[in-house]
């Protein structure tokens, strides 16, 4: 069965007609052609498809597209403002926190979600925060460094 749905992704409203069996990940990648969100395992093990769904971090492979009807989503395509990279994106570049880059979009969204919940996380909280996101290149050190620096700079910048 096919269903008409409406979603808002990165402030853009989309309408689509999809089978009930499409995942949110499939909706984003194959229907809306927002391919920044990656499919790694497809079963909630690797976190490469993490997106922000109504303000909460989710794995897009474990949500049906029809469940997203009426939802507001944020994906990596909404991270930069035009040509202006976000603080996290710049910090990931500075710390060489991306190698093959496959985990990076979800890692940045996960880090952004973590910093919204815990603006000044300890290293332990950063590690726990990205525990659901596998990276097979970096060994995580550079990623933790990148997130820590954004948190520290934001703290210094406040007041």
């Amino acid at each position, binding site marked *: *069965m096919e269903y008409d749905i409406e979603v808002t992704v990165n402030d853009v409203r989309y309408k689509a007609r999809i*089978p009930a069996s499409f995942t949110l990940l499939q909706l984003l990648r194959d229907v809306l052609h927002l391919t920044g969100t990656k*499919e790694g395992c497809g079963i909630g093990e690797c976190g490469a498809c993490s997106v922000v769904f109504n303000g909460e*971090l989710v794995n897009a492979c*474990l949500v*049906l597209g029809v*469940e997203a009807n009426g939802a507001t989503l944020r994906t990596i395509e909404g991270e930069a403002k035009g040509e202006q990279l976000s603080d996290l994106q710049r910090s990931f570049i500075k710390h060489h926190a991306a190698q093959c880059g496959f985990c990076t979009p979800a890692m940045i969204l996960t880090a952004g979600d973590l910093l919204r919940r815990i603006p000044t996380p300890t290293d332990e909280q950063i590690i726990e925060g990205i*525990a*659901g996101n596998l990276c097979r290149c970096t060994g995580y050190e550079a990623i933790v460094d990148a997130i820590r620096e954004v948190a520290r700079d934001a703290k210094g910048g406040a007041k």
Partner: protein
Amino acid sequence: MVSSLARSWYEASFLSHGANMNFAYEKPTTAQALSRLLEQGGAGASLLAGGTDLLVQLRGRLIEPKLVIDLKGVEELSRLDHHDDGSVTIGATVTANRVIDDKRLSGAMAALPHACSHIAAFAIRNRATIAGNIANASPCADSVPPLCVLDAEVELRTTTATRRLSLPAFIRGVRATVRAKNEYIAAIHVPAQPKGTRSFFRKHQRVRGHDLALANAALLHDPERKRLRVAIGSCSPAPVVVVLDDLFESLDAQEAARRCMAAIIPISDVRASAEYRTDMTGVLVRRLFDDLKA
């Protein structure tokens, strides 16, 4: 060749490209409408709460439903209520992260949020529900041992009837429960605990973070009724509850560990051998006693 192989792998990897993967989706807004849909759908209907287990089963073709019924439209199933008498009702669509964030689930019920914080990873806990963790009936479900020692009950509903079962009565084996095809879990009821009751949870896993349990266990200590019990998961087809009330005074951790190790029926699989699981159960029980005495 490589690209066409890659492409066919990619296409096969999504849910909708297999035969028979053509189901209807309904999101009722009342409990009555939900029951009716479930009655009509019969064996071809699957219930969707968080979806973190269901979508994996759909993808693996372990189930091929004709109808998927989303519970999240029914407002009353989303409630996490603390009642005046101290009991707690966890609605069918309450997520693990909501249980973790509920500051009132402390003291007597502390084992439950602690166990929930060990379910998968943060993003999955935003979707995964306690009811789903129980309904899926995986032997390693982390929320089950705490709910067992807390004497929680599962409320099952049909269009005409309601029944409540303890977790050991509800879970009959690996991915097997007594839920009838026309029943759904409406809520989990955790009874009020006497003053001074405390509960603890421990999990043994290969890596810290996102991993399944090799063994998990919860302990409840109720000084008013002099009750002491341990529930163990991952080491038997269904959860094992060991009543240790006669050790209430001595708090003999060695004896408790010995009895728990004797009560389980672990298997050897890709994650651990039965022997290792038995040894780790002993370690977990001793550590739970350390938590209690600390």
